[in-house]
């Protein structure tokens, strides 16, 4: 079953100089199957975030068709400093989606508790404010806010890019667990092929608004066809095994 289907999506923006158009997304077609983690990898300016926003319905494509059949869609963004309202307590941040749906109070409290346990934050977190947490904890809060509504589809846009590598691994493990446990469909956007490989079943490589290569993770990672994918892979600096 397909959760997201994009057909020849185009989205152009006026360029900064005002003289031309930036082709942020330039004819992208793709399909994301239910329960799959789909990776979108590319460098800055490749159009991956714009495409994610189109799937979220935040942006409207200039042309093409997007069909999202997921009942509930959520998003997790890169920078948990900007994506959490500094004036809201954690309880209010996580519960906001439920409050908007006018859920009864006791059901809200129960679901917030479950979400909190899922992202492994202590109960006393609920009465605190975002600035009292580290970057990794804040990203847990953002994940809690996303999963509390039991979404079928989550767009994760660079969810670990601003974190230290030890914390990255914790958050990636958490995202992977949640994805498998609840069979949530992911669109996982990242510039980092390693993070994408860790999470995703399929990968699309994006460059200048177009998808240059698409396939199952192992094929992309171990036998890339496109020269750009190869360049991206060769730019990864290995530590292990370290050879002198």
């Amino acid at each position, binding site marked *: 079953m397909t959760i997201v289907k994009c057909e020849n999506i185009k989205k152009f923006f006026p360029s900064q100089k005002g003289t031309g158009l930036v082709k942020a997304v330039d004819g992208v077609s793709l399909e994301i199957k239910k329960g799959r983690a789909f990776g979108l990898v590319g460098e800055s300016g490749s159009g991956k975030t714009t495409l994610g926003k189109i799937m979220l319905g935040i942006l409207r494509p200039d042309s093409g068709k997007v069909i999202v059949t997921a009942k509930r869609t959520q998003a997790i963004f890169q920078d948990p400093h900007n994506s959490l309202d500094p004036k809201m307590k954690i309880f209010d941040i996580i519960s906001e989606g439920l409050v908007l749906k006018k859920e009864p109070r006791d059901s809200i409290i129960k679901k917030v508790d479950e979400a909190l346990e899922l992202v492994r934050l202590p109960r006393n977190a609920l009465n605190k404010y975002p600035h009292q947490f580290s970057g990794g904890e804040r990203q847990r809060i953002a994940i809690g806010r996303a999963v509390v509504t039991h979404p079928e589809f989550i767009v994760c846009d660079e969810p670990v890019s601003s974190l230290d590598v030890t914390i990255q691994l914790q958050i990636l493990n958490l995202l992977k667990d949640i994805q498998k446990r609840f069979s949530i469909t992911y669109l996982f956007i990242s510039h980092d092929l390693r993070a994408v490989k860790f999470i995703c079943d399929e990968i699309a490589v994006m460059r200048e608004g177009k998808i240059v290569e698409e396939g199952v993770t192992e094929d992309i990672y171990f036998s890339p066809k496109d020269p750009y994918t190869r360049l991206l892979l060769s730019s990864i600096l290995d530590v292990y095994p*370290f050879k002198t």
Partner: protein
Amino acid sequence: MDTLKINNLKTYFHTKEGLVKAVDGVSFNIKKGEVFGLVGESGSGKTLTALSTLKLVPAPAEIGGEVFFNGADILKMSEAYLRGIRGSKIAIVFQEPSTSLDPVFTIGYQMMEAIYAHRSPEDRSRARKIVLGYLERVHMPDPARIFHNYPHQLSGGTKQRVMIAMALINSPELLILDEPTTALDVTIQAQILDLLDEIIEKEKLSILFISHDLGIIARMCDRVAVMYKGRLVEMGDKADILNDPKEPYTRSLLESVKALA
């Protein structure tokens, strides 16, 4: 011969919440021509170590210990004397080229300033030529155009090339690179690291290379120190640290990288 020798460096801040020991008794040395890597996660004190080395930490910070540059203690030097060293004998390249460059001046103007600040009248009179030479040196495709460009007209990678050219322009003996490629895409990062390789090869500079990325440290450095909570928890040859880490913190760092590889 050590270009830089740091003994028991301490940088403390007095805050409302109490004393913060940002750098807490750090000692290491960088031999002439050596690339020394300082690796650690955010908040570990890497950047403050670099800034303390140049006595660039603003008051009310308290700096203690000794920082010998070619045998003379930087922490005991006068401000006026230090100004003659910063940007000439010791140069530094920061992570964010967009905030390192002044948005209202052209690249050429900003690079010529570095020459006016440190060079002889003779060199000053041919500053423009020197600048163009250094832009070429970092493989800028069109130096004459870049010279007249403003920072916002350049990409991140090009700006970082400018920063490197500017750091080299007064022939420093010690170059501090503080996360020089962290803000860049991986393919651009690879280009900048190639450029740095070439410079290291040619100039025989002593380099303090700061990074959170063990991959970069593995590619670029000779010796490595691992920093955690203001202290150096482990130090040694790159191969020893990466292949056989002794400290639990270094191990956990390497295991995270390995899990993602």
